[in-house]
């Protein structure tokens, strides 16, 4: 379970500040930090038009697939991937062994600018993650009040009539 640091709200605030500065420098639309499972850790920028949950899952999969390809061509890893679009482009780069930085930026923005500032940003993010990793783990959420009976029907099946009404 030591694959991710114990991040507090203060850590998140610092990460958000780093992402904000990165976005200001690059004019990127959005920047996300995700983990290897595809979970979204934090994000900044204008994300109103994006499904961040799906983007995190897909980008994580695509990035890890590229790493698997790297191994097949005797490369230690490909530390970034770039997808060019007509309106938006996507840049994903390694932060550390378990986390990635995703940048969504307008196609008119140069990739070089994004890569240049991303190199600095990932170092700062990685440093913050390292600091939090050294910190003693905090207490987890207390789930003890959850009764066994409460979990029997967490997901309910919609009744046929109800489905038709919708």
């Amino acid at each position, binding site marked *: 379970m030591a*694959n991710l640091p114990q991040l507090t709200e203060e850590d998140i605030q610092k990460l958000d500040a780093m992402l904000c500065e990165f976005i200001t420098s690059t004019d990127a639309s959005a920047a996300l930090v995700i983990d290897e499972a595809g979970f979204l850790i934090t994000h900044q920028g204008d994300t109103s038009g994006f499904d961040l949950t799906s983007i995190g899952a897909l980008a994580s999969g695509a990035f890890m697939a590229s790493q*698997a390809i790297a191994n097949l061509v005797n490369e230690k890893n490909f530390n970034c991937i770039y997808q060019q679009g007509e309106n938006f482009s996507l840049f994903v780069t390694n932060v550390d062994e378990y986390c990635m930085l995703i940048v969504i930026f307008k196609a008119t923005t140069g990739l070089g600018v994004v890569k240049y500032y991303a190199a600095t940003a990932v170092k700062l993010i990685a440093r913050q993650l390292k600091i939090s990793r050294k910190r003693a783990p905090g207490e987890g959420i207390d789930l003890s009040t959850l009764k066994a009976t409460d979990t029997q029907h967490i997901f309910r099946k919609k009744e046929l009539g109800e489905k038709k009404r919708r």
Partner: protein
Amino acid sequence: MAIINQATKELQVKVVYYGPAMGGKTTNLVQVHDHVQTAAGDKGKLVSLATSSERTLFFDFLPVEAMTIRGFKTKFQLYTVPGQVIYNTTRQLVLRGVDGIVFVADSQYEKMPENVESFQNLIDNLNSIKFNLHDIPYVLQYNKRDLPNVAPIEYMEFLLNNREVQVPSFTSTAHRCEGVFETLNMITRLLLHKFINQGVPQRA
């Protein structure tokens, strides 16, 4: 592994549907997507990376939100793996960061060798990413019970659930949504109980 995000008050959990090709993994997710009625009424978009013949190429992905526990929203991310043997590397990728597993077995007699092979493949792939099946909550689902040539449950239990500690197993006919929610609720229950007993590390 599961994440608790203190900033957004969310608990995020990853569940992977594993099993042999054409066993009904994607059908499970489609049925959950079509029929789920969550407490918050929130379900995400079902993302399928499939071939033109609707065989899973990379994975299917469905985010669903469940109950709120002490102010924390519980978000489950459901994945399937491609069942075809050639996509083993892809299966290893999808397993990374997994919290719980649903093994979907095909009940047809002639599919028993594939079920056993796929289950062993699951163990091997977990080992390759330094996970152990015994440390991960999982349930078994014996699917396609509506077909005429199905093996008896006892035989499937002998093949797939013949261990010191047996795990919960369910019969299902996924395309009719029978047994789908029972399976999902059980893996959810096992995961939450694991977190209650062990505690979830505070990640964010």
